């Protein structure tokens, strides 16, 4: 009888033993294939502790390379010569319990963007060159261009912005530039310590309200093309005015259009600006960012898509969205279940509202086509975009979107018929 009692007590104690402090779970974010010489970011933000005993101090996260400690902190960055490296993350909670996660870093030579010196580019791009090239798919929005020119992931002259985002998100951006610091604070505040999300938010804010790499709205493109509703002063129609005063001197740009001869603009030279016709067109990303430092909706959107792709966002994670009268972006941030709509046009402010769509335009209803450097893609379904869940999508549109399943359509039709019968 006594024995039985002891056994019962032991059995009843099992749940309490189970509820004692558990070791944290280390997560080093999986194996990495990187280009030798580029900055690799190691991120432990997916590590967790069910008891919430992870202290916000560097020693919580220790990083080892082939058994030798190389860093402490939730993230760190390092570059590697060609080779294979074993990296171990050790996460320790405040009570001393720890766990480890091993990943392999395979550093190799460039497989993409081979004809440029770009060090930041997406591994899943079809592009090898920068502008001018005829790579990728022909894209026709305001003018016709090749996807590898518009989303110019292979241009090394845009790498510095990716580097800025890395420095921002690995706690070392201190430029003395107030605008960059503000964008960086925003990015770190809302990224839940995830480096990849932080980099994306830095880029969104730097083209949006932060006004860092592109400024204002390039009204001259509209005026030159004679788009009267987007040209504030009708005296400027079919001219390259107004000249923006807050960006670089663009007064040398030419407008060759008139009411009788009104083609899309053309970009032919980075060095002799007077050779370019500035009428409405879709210019390569490096032109919008490094030469004009401004643009219209398509330019802002392609610039952001380019920078996010260079940062490492996969082809199904970022798109430029074309609508009948606008362009904006769709981004799938790390860990999120759905896409987020973003609009940085003319330093739009706020460019992003978490969990919702930006303001001032029917973003969900207007999605027409989705693009990135690999050309035109299927757009995500509205039910997979934050803020668009309750917007009705036509069955035809649904069939042209990612995640489309015929069973979902059948269910929708059954629901519709049942509703009608009731």
């Amino acid at each position, binding site marked *: 009888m006594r024995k039985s009692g002891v056994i019962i007590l032991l059995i009843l104690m099992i749940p309490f033993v189970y509820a004692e402090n558990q070791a944290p779970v280390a997560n080093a974010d999986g194996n990495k294939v990187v280009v030798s010489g580029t900055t690799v970011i190691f991120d432990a933000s997916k590590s*967790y502790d069910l008891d919430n005993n992870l202290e916000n101090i560097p020693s919580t996260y220790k990083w080892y390379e082939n058994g030798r400690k190389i860093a402490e902190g939730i993230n760190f960055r390092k570059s590697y010569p060609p080779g294979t490296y074993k990296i171990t993350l050790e996460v320790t909670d405040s009570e001393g319990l720890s766990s480890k996660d091993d990943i392999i870093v395979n550093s190799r030579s460039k497989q993409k963007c081979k004809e440029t010196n770009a060090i930041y580019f997406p591994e899943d791009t079809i592009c090898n060159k920068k502008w001018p090239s005829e790579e990728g798919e022909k894209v026709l929005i305001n003018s016709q261009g090749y996807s590898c020119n518009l989303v110019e992931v292979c241009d090394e002259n845009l790498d510095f912005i990716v580097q800025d985002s890395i420095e921002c998100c690995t706690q070392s951006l201190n430029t003395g530039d107030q605008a960059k610091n503000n964008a960086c604070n925003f990015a770190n505040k809302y990224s839940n310590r995830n480096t990849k999300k932080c980099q994306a938010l830095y880029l969104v804010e730097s083209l949006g*309200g932060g006004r860092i790499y592109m400024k204002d709205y390039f009204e001259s493109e509209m005026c030159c093309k004679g788009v009267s509703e987007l040209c504030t002063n009708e005296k400027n129609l079919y001219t390259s005015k107004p000249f923006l005063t807050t960006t670089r001197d663009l007064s040398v740009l030419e407008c060759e259009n008139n009411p009788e001869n009104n083609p899309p603009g053309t970009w032919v030279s980075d060095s002799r600006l007077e050779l370019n016709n500035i009428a409405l067109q879709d210019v390569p990303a490096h032109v919008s960012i490094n030469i004009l430092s401004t643009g219209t*909706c398509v330019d802002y959107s392609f610039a952001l898509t380019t920078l996010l792709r260079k940062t490492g966002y996969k082809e199904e994670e970022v798109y430029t969205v074309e609508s009948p009268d606008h362009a904006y972006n769709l981004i799938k941030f790390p860990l*999120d279940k759905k896409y987020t709509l973003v609009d940085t046009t003319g330093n739009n402010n*706020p460019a992003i*509202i978490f*969990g919702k769509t930006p303001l001032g335009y029917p973003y969900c209803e207007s999605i027409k086509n989705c693009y990135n450097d690999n050309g035109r893609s299927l757009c995500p379904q509205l039910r997979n975009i934050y803020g668009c869940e309750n917007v009705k999508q036509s069955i035809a549109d649904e069939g042209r979107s990612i995640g489309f399943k015929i069973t979902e359509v059948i269910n929708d039709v059954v629901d519709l018929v049942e509703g009608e019968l009731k």
Partner: protein
Amino acid sequence: MIKKILLIILLLVGIVNAQEITVIKEAPDTINFNEILSVNLKITNLDDIEKSYQIIETIPQGVSLIDPSEPDEVQKYNALSVNLYKWNIDIKPKETFTITYKIKPDNLGEYIIPPTKVNDLSTNYVFLSDSKQIIVSCVSNNQCEANENSLNCPDDCSTGMADGICDYKADERCDPDCEEEPDCKNTGLGSSVYLIVIGIISLFIIIFLIKLFKKPKVSEINIDTH
């Protein structure tokens, strides 16, 4: 050489221009939702002569105009409409002119009022102020309402709710906004197995206890028969 001299002169002109005016944008750092935000623009003419300026203030999206109630200009950025306030003012030397306007943010969260543009009409020099960040806070009522989420109203909306925000956090709630999350992992196979084991053990305990309480009765019956 001449080019270099010209460049230096141009740079010096820029510095002088930059010192001729100061613009300070004043507003509270935080306001509550539904409150009216009052913004002061303090423009000081540091020059020795009276100057005429055009002041251009770009109003962020999602804001109701209170005073003035109408914008002076609406600019179209493709399909987006951007409201502008504009003022033309003259400021005497070394004096400060203050402009106040009032707006009401329509949403919770972070707003950035872009830099104020001040155009010196005599030189066409454009001076930009700093931008101003404003946090619009929710008024807590213990209910997570339509516009609220765990980011903009943490007092009312706890983490792990279906609010469009993925809170990657071990908080014993599987956040439906996350693709992967620690708490969702725990509702997986491992925890199911644990529950099944506990269930089986509990069943054995119940059976064991029933048998334990039945035994004395059997012995009592035996005694009675003897």
